[in-house]
């Protein structure tokens, strides 16, 4: 049961995955840059969020625990992997990707804005000194004909328990 708690972010882990997920969403929602044009914030996979564009969703948070020594109260390093996805839609593929006139932003800028919000950042003190940026990628959603684009931002952070 302890192992299950560790894996799924139960009581034995310093911070649960759902806490990290909520905190990440909170930081994103506080961003004045994103608030100017993002229509929907969400938690969970893009299926839940993608009906209203542009969207930002904290798609998943997973964790693993590395004990530093043997023993009942052994200190551990908790590693978290945070995946944030965001999406844009426009009938013209180049506008969905790059934005257009009138300040309309495309997926390239949305991804950059999400990265600026979350990195370098300690997520309100959860991670010290900052989360790390593992990868940012932009792709069109399959079979959307270029009208719908999605960015995936992968971050990771560690904290000692």
């Amino acid at each position, binding site marked *: 049961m302890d192992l299950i708690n560790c894996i799924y972010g139960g009581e034995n882990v310093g911070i649960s995955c759902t806490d990290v997920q909520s905190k990440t969403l909170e930081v994103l929602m506080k961003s004045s840059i994103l608030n100017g044009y993002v229509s929907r914030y969400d938690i969970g996979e893009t299926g839940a969020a993608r009906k209203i564009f542009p969207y930002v969703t904290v798609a998943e948070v997973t964790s693993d625990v590395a004990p530093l020594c043997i023993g009942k109260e052994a200190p551990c390093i908790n590693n978290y992997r945070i995946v944030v996805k965001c999406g844009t839609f426009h009938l013209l593929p180049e506008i969905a990707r790059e934005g257009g006139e009138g300040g309309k932003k495309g997926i390239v*800028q949305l991804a*950059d804005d999400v990265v600026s919000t979350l990195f*370098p950042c300690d997520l309100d003190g959860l991670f010290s000194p900052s989360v790390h940026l*593992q*990868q940012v990628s932009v792709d069109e959603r399959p079979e959307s004909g270029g009208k719908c684009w999605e960015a995936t931002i992968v971050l990771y952070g560690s904290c000692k328990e």
Partner: protein
Amino acid sequence: MLSDTKSIEDKMLDVLRNSSELVDFEGVYIKGGISAAIKQFPFVALGNMRYREGVLKDAGGTLIYAVSIYVGARNMVSGRAFNDSEQGKGVGNICSAVVRTIKNSDFEKIFIKPVKNIKIDPIYMVDGSGMICIGEVSFEAEVWYHNERI
């Protein structure tokens, strides 16, 4: 904004478009990868960039961009898109010209170091008929960012 990917893409496309190595290439230059360019042969297409953390320091750090450039050509004679012909330059030569452009350009100083890990795959994709050939040139480059929270 930590990094302005759109302006990096614009500058890179300008460098390719104005390259003396590609002066006799009569095709389109486009952003967005193969799917954006597939109907407009021949093409030089800047792929969707990926980036990750490089060096992280208090006041700033670096981001490492992974860039892919795709080159596509079509020839009505099956198996001839790779080589030059009376229908235009082949993928092999255009890929070489792109590599020379990358090596010789400072990209208007958007990157803080010379580009690295230049890889060339001139037969990245060939269609079933053999009339279309797409090559890929990829490399990594580093940009500096300033931590705006400090």
